[in-house]
């Protein structure tokens, strides 16, 4: 038990933060825990969660991907255009995923092969992807995606939960598996932990980065497809600043920005925590100006809980 606790202490601390948030809100506003509201929280966490999972992969290698918000918009526009062109649905999904993967691989190429700093390289593609999105759409949202395409990710499982939630959890499971059980996952952690040592142990660092940036971008691609489904629109200006939310979900979930450490479960909880917080502030009708302050304070506290958790644990076992 203690061993399990120790192994997952990062996940515990963000779970604690999540529970505290939920309990506080439901004391302050009993309707907070209504079924529809919980469904809203989960549904809203899907976008950040998927993007956060992808970001976690990239951050584990010691990198970062600032282009995900722009890529979200670009994939959404192209996906919406293809859907309006009535591309057969399975091919549509595959093309979009493949395209998203390539956007990620290009980032990985800049960072791994050309050795650009991840921050600056993906800041460049953040602009490039955004620009391409505007150019191909002329700046206008791609409207009226046919229902059949919208239903792919958006059909209702219950009255309030859609298939997108399943996609989210499936993606989380698959990526957890990839990170924990496959070679590429091990290599990702190795590269993030100590790049030189990894290279000397035979890890092909460049290839690993390209693959991982590609895999990570699949999370954003799924988020884009779900966005098309939910909104029926591909909007070239959407997703601005989402990269920070994705990073926040990962970081709150215990992923170290220095690389080598992080896991998907923590990120998922981090995304749900974020969503629970946002929904809570809205349900309570907190003034938007104060929402900033509350959000900021919660981020700091959640991050700090993780730190004191670590210290307390070290003390207790003495």
């Amino acid at each position: 038990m203690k061993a399990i606790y120790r192994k997952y202490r990062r996940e515990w601390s963000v779970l604690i933060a999540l529970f505290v948030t939920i309990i506080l809100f439901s004391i302050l506003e009993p309707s907070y825990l209504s079924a529809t509201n919980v469904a809203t929280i989960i549904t809203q966490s899907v976008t950040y969660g998927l993007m956060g999972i992808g970001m976690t992969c990239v951050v584990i290698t010691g990198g970062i991907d600032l282009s995900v918000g722009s890529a979200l918009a670009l994939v959404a526009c192209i996906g919406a255009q293809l859907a309006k062109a009535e591309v057969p649905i399975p091919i549509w999904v595959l093309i979009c995923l493949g395209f998203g993967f390539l956007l990620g691989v290009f980032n990985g190429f800049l960072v791994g092969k050309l050795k650009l700093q991840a921050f600056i390289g993906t800041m460049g593609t953040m602009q490039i992807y955004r620009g391409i999105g505007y150019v191909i759409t002329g700046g206008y949202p791609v409207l009226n995606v046919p229902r059949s395409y919208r239903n792919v990710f958006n059909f209702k499982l219950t009255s309030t939960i859609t298939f997108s939630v399943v996609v989210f959890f499936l993606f989380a499971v698959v990526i957890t598996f990839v990170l924990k059980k496959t070679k590429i996952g091990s290599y990702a952690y190795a590269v993030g932990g100590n790049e030189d040592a990894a290279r000397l142990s035979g890890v092909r660092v460049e290839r690993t980065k390209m693959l991982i940036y590609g895999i990570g971008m699949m999370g954003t691609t799924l988020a884009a497809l779900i966005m098309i489904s939910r909104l029926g629109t591909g909007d070239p200006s959407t997703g601005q600043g989402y990269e920070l939310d994705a990073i926040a979900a990962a970081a709150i979930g215990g992923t170290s920005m220095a690389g080598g450490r992080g896991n998907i479960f923590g990120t998922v909880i981090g995304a749900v925590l974020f969503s629970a917080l946002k929904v809570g502030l809205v349900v309570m009708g907190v003034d938007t100006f104060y929402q900033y302050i509350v959000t900021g304070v919660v981020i700091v506290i959640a991050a700090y809980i993780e730190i004191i958790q670590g210290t307390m644990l070290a003390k207790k076992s003495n």
Partner: protein
Amino acid sequence: MEKYIEFEHITKVFPGQKALDDLSFSVLKGEIHAILGENGAGKSTLLNILHGVFPATEGEIRIDGKKAEFSSIADSIEFGIAKVHQEIVSIPEMTVAENLFLGKEPSRHGIIDKKKMNLETEKLLGRLNCDIKPTDRMGELSTGQKQMVSIAKALETEAKVISFDEPTSSLSDKEVETLFQIIRGLKEKGITILYISHKMNEIFEICDRASILRDGMYITTLDMKKTDRDEIIRAMIGRDTAMFAQRTMPSQRKGEKPVLEVENLCGDAFENVSFQLYSGEILGFFGLVGAGRTEVMRVVFGADPYKSGKVLLNGKELHCRSPRDGINSGIALISENRKEEGILPNFNNMDNMSLPCLDKFMSGAVISTKKKMDNAKKKGSMVGLKPNEPEFMTASLSGGNAQKVILARWMSTDASVMIFDEPTKGIDIGAKAEIYLLMEKMAAAGIAIIMVSSELTEVIGMSDRIYVMRDGKMTMELKRNEFSEEKILNYTVEGDET
């Protein structure tokens, strides 16, 4: 002489691990006091507590009768305690002088006097006979040179206590000699010195007394003049052991054709290096710090590019562009620098050991934890890892045990050519013997071994042949019957080129 440093009932518990257990002894003023013990006995932990790196769980330290409790390293340095750390910790982007004076720059109103800093550095490095410029970037130095700088760093302070945690692990005898002269000079000035080493001859050469730890407990303190090797070793490991670097088997060299041939290889730090390596052979490479041995091995392995020349494996030319290519061809390189190039700090022992050859641990497309674990247990016990727990984080191991994990990693790869760069660096005396035995067994199994080492006794004791390098050039090849310390040392400093 009076008691100067008193350790009183020191206990230190790490999560899931008791590193020090109710330990008490004292050190006299102005003596050179050795702290001895196996890997993981708690030596570094004890010094780290003294230096305020972390606090003791229980107990206290008194210096000069006063309770010494440092809440940070900066405090202990201010108090006048300096330390040479076991792992080389330096700032690669800064110059040698900046590293040396970090935390105590000569300054006026916060403005650093760079000129003075460089001048002092030059003087200091001169005293140590090292060929390093104050303005060199730290990251460009060889491991041995970095070690010299960290020693210089401790000497530079006006400390009352200086402790050395394996200062000589990458130094050759020549440099060690210089260091000892300086340490004796410090002792004459009345400075108290704590000295950790796994090299028995050093202890006898320089230390006055030795305190011995075993499994975190204090065993005894011995006067070096009244004791001998055997007594010390018994106290350390609780039994007798043959620990001399001595071959137990005759040469296992097989075949007429070399496994590995290197012809006129030229790289960034060496020129025209040629040698042959035969199956079952243990080939020693000796030289002073910075001679270029590490560079040659990195090129052969594929970690660095080369300018010209050839590397042939079993008669076929190799074009290793990356370590992966080297590994796939059956070459393993155990790097000398475990912290920067060896350990993955975020991995546990079994993951650290299995990284180069994950293919061996797959069931289908999935990595099997069980296979990794079995391998880790097996290889861990072969190298005498303590604790031999596959899920223990390697970064929390003692220095010597971390080195053993790296050895175990490369033994997991089934390579046919094993290159050991300073293989016994930081390894305790009992385990050393086991590792020598292991190398012999590998040789007997037909593996070709290169052993780069700065320890002359080890090179002479273990090798079938020895190549000597100096300033990036091969200076001599010696057969076993030609080995002599004098000859070898001659070629390391001023030998003719072959």
